[in-house]
């Protein structure tokens, strides 16, 4: 794939949010790959995970690294750009071009910070729908991993006539208490950073330590014991014996520190707070009365994929989703991919995923 660039779409009318509040002047950063066909029904909307962005595939000019799902998006790949019109946008509340807490509030001329309204996955999808309508898409496939899978589910339930295929990867219809707990630790790290300043830090020191710790916790949950052992075991970083102080001793410590540090350069702490909250709130069973009721009126074909070593969004939660669909006699397929990579597998195990997704989409 050649160079791609991020485009921007301004929504003229205000967006009503689930919380009852409104957002004005919402702007959406998005990228597209491939061409929309005459019937406007060959679109695939990719939905990114917690810290992703609109740049799913290809290269930005001057970049050495391609988009976050480049292994899966392109000519002849799982999401084949020769056949499909692939769209990816940054989510509402994000910090990669779409309106979020680091955007300027038109009423005050200042960054929103914590005055940004609390958003939900439903709100995120409502904004994506505006983009899809603007692009002229009439029918689409929605696909996403982790939090992206939640958005895919929300799409299928909110717009049953528009969504032909739903691909939910390493995701869940609702977080477990354990996963909410990890998000809470991350948020607490940010909120208690001395530089946090109640979210108003855009013109001074940023709450980098808090955000880095949040990312470190996150990274632990994206791996698994086996993956960590494989990667680091108990090895010391660049030496053979301990320091006998509290500097970095182990390779795993160094890895986490590195992940934390590179993250603060590319992500906004307020966005982390808002997005993790949206993930925590997502619960379609509660919204519709039960998981089975939620899917009563869905018309899409579903493909659910989980990974054997993923303990953050475990297979049991994917199966719960599959069972609810099955009991409604919906067209649902499920595959558990054997992988030692933990939750991160959805970004790494692209060969098996490609086989499964391509065959799922081939008759479309």
């Amino acid at each position, binding site marked *: 794939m050649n160079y791609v660039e991020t485009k921007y779409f301004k929504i003229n009318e205000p967006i009503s949010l689930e919380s009852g509040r409104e957002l004005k002047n919402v702007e959406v950063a998005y990228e597209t790959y491939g061409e929309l066909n005459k019937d406007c029904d060959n679109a695939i909307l990719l939905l990114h995970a917690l810290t992703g962005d609109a740049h799913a595939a290809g290269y930005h000019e001057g970049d050495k690294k391609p988009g976050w799902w480049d292994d899966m998006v392109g000519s002849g790949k799982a999401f084949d750009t020769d056949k499909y019109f692939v769209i990816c946008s940054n989510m509402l509340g994000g910090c990669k071009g779409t309106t979020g807490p680091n955007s300027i509030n038109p009423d005050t001329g200042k960054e929103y910070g914590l005055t940004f309204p609390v958003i939900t996955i439903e709100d995120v999808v409502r904004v994506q729908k505006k983009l899809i309508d603007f692009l002229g898409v009439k029918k689409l496939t929605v696909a996403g991993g982790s939090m992206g899978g939640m958005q895919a589910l929300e799409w299928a339930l909110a717009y049953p006539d528009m969504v032909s295929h739903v691909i939910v990867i390493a995701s869940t219809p609702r977080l477990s208490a354990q996963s909410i707990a990890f998000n809470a630790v991350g948020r607490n790290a940010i909120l208690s950073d001395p530089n946090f300043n109640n979210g108003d830090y855009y013109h001074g020191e940023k709450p980098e330590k808090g955000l880095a710790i949040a990312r470190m916790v996150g990274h632990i949950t994206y791996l698994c014991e086996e993956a960590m052992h494989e990667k680091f075991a108990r090895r010391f970083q660049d030496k053979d014996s301990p320091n006998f102080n509290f500097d970095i001793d182990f390779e795993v410590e160094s890895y986490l520190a590195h992940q934390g540090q590179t993250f603060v350069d590319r992500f906004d702490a307020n966005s982390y707070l808002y997005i993790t909250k949206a993930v925590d709130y997502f619960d379609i069973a509660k919204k519709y009365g039960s998981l089975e009721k939620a899917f009563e009126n869905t018309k899409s*074909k579903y*493909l659910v994929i989980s990974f054997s070593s993923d303990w953050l969004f475990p297979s049991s939660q994917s*199966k719960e989703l*599959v*069972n609810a669909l*099955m*009991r409604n*006699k919906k*067209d*649902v*397929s*499920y*595959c*558990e*991919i054997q992988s030692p990579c933990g939750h991160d597998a959805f970004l790494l195990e692209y060969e*098996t995923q490609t*086989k*499964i997704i391509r*065959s*799922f989409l*081939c*008759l479309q």
Partner: protein
Amino acid sequence: MSPVNDHYIKSKGLHLNYSIITDMVETGATVLDLGCGDGTLMKMLKDKGVFVSGIDISEDNIVKCLEKGLPVIQGDIDEGLHEYPEKSYDYVILNQTLQSTEKPDYVIKEMLRVGKKIVVSFPNFAYWRVRFYLLFNGKMPKSKILPFEWFNTPNIHLLTIKDFYEFARDNDFKIESKLSMTKAKIRKSLFHRIFDNLFTEEVIFLCTKI
């Protein structure tokens, strides 16, 4: 899960078997196919206007079913069908798979719970050629339907027509109908009916819970 080999898949026998089962199921019915393999039977049923869903353990078979546009769930039928409510399918099918399950009694019990009717087919181990093979060669029988060596066969619970009748009696389910096949033909002659267990190569049962 499906123990049948490629050779057999290409043979007429299995195709006859598929079309017999397809004829058994009426348009508009709901079918759960256990050990659905590459989805050939499901596809035939779907083309007839049957709502189908399959379960298979192998990733390769999941891909093959998806390519045919068939809904399929990766799972191990030996673990039961817990998540399926009672009588939630008109038919639950176990085609050429019973003999390779680890807990055939449990699998059938679960099928009878979930399905209003169940279809079970298997190779008859009392077929005269099988008996003769063991009698004259003194080795574990091999044939088109049973092509494996004793040490690598997935067919770990081989049975005969007589065994299945006994099993039905002991487990309180009713055999509604039975079709006997030999050399890819349905056999209905009086002679065949008398010596059924001896001259039937494979058999398809339709059963219900009493």
